[in-house]
């Protein structure tokens, strides 16, 4: 039995999620920033974390974007294989982005062509990722992605002989090179394994996980903790003015890969790591 979902419902949900994600920081990020502020030993760093908390409270009150870079809309769809959508899913998502970015007074930050660079004027198209899953539900996650942090992301095709140490060194190198640019404290999404493109996709997916939730695999959960500790000895600190709190979390996703390869992708996100999910 196929379950019917009207495309108009997708539009309505995407529009709402675009606005909510941009104006209200998720609770896990709030808790994490508050804890970091309490334990930040460097006064200038603490001061910045306090301002950051003040900022998202103002955004809450005014229903105003937390950051002016309201991002490119990354939309993750987990489509149950027993779901049938009446109409085009892609058109429905883009119409939702168009409405959400207009009605929510969000910034239109998308150019239609990477070299000719003319703004599309409505923040479409969205970056849409589809996962086909068992069941009859449709899960929609909207994650506006700012490019100050996106630009600091890197991917590297390591050799198998580079091993665990090579992966660790690369993660730290990416954060070190980014320095103050991506608005630290940052969230670090890492994808290890797969192919060139799959590693990058896993890194982006890793950013969708709560910052207080470690990998289900104990080995990778330990690696996440170790990497966070290591990054927070670099001294970059909030906004790069020095301090312990350079990163709030390291989230790692991993997957099978080829006998000849060890791809590793590091996708950086800022302290305004936004995502909002709804299930239809």
């Amino acid at each position, binding site marked *: 039995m196929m379950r019917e979902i009207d495309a108009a419902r997708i539009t309505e949900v995407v529009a709402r999620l675009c606005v909510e994600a941009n104006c209200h920081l998720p609770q896990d990020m709030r808790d994490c920033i508050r804890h970091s502020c309490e334990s930040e*030993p*460097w006064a*200038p*760093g603490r001061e*910045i974390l306090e*301002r*950051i908390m*003040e*900022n*998202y409270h*103002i*955004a809450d009150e*005014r229903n*105003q*974007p*937390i*950051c*002016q*870079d*309201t991002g490119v809309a990354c939309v993750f769809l987990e489509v149950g294989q027993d779901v049938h959508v009446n109409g085009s899913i892609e058109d429905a998502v883009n119409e939702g982005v168009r409405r959400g970015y207009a009605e929510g*007074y*969000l*910034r*239109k*930050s998308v150019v239609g062509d990477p070299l000719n*660079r003319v*703004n599309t*004027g409505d923040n479409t198209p969205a970056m849409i990722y589809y996962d086909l899953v068992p069941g009859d539900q449709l899960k929609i996650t909207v994650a506006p992605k700012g490019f*100050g942090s996106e*630009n600091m992301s890197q991917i590297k095709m390591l050799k198998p002989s580079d091993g665990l140490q090579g992966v660790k060194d690369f993660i730290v190198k990416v954060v070190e090179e980014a*320095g*103050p*640019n*991506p*608005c630290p404290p940052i969230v670090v999404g890492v994808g290890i394994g797969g192919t060139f493109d799959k590693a990058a996709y896993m890194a982006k997916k890793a950013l969708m996980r709560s910052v207080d939730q470690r990998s289900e695999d104990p080995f990778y959960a330990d690696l996440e903790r170790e990497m966070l500790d290591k990054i927070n000895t670099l*001294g*970059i*600190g909030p*906004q*790069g*003015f*020095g*301090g*312990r709190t350079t990163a709030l979390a390291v989230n790692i996703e991993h997957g099978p890969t080829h006998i000849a390869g060890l791809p590793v992708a590091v996708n950086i996100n*800022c*302290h*305004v790591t936004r995502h909002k999910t709804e299930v239809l």
Partner: protein
Amino acid sequence: MAIKVTAPLSREEARKLRSGDSCLISGVIYTARDAAHKRLCELVAQGKELPLDIKDAVIYFVGPTPAKEGQAIGSAGPTTSYRMDAYSPTLIAQGQTGMIGKGKRGPEVVAAMKEHGAVYFGAIGGCGALLSKCIKKAEVIAYEDLGAEAIRRLEVEDFPAVVIIDSQGNNLYETGRTAYLESLQ
């Protein structure tokens, strides 16, 4: 104690500011980011007049969100500055004395700042809602077709910014980090 800074900013005043100074900027500043900088530098290359008075100008690297009714401007925090590195030396040579952004700058920008006497301020990235409260008036004065990237004339009051790189080339990103790491020893 924060230092009160008035914009436009004279070269003499810009030279007095030191890396690490906390400032509150009041007066008139201009917004410009990637696309507007490109156009401004094309005008300079052609010897044409610029759409803003570049002498003593402070340029804020920002593309704000649209204003709601009753607001002067939407959220308006800094964008990453290194993307303007290709253009800033040209504008500094034309008389610009201040830049507000976030993140590292290239050696060519620092060299121009030292030669002409200019200062690079950092505003807190990702705090666009907070910073918008210090912007009292905003008016598009050029390149309306660029949308968020148009050049705006802003009237600001006590806009908080820290001097990251001063006209002598001192850099808070280096000294702040070193001072923190040394405090641990």
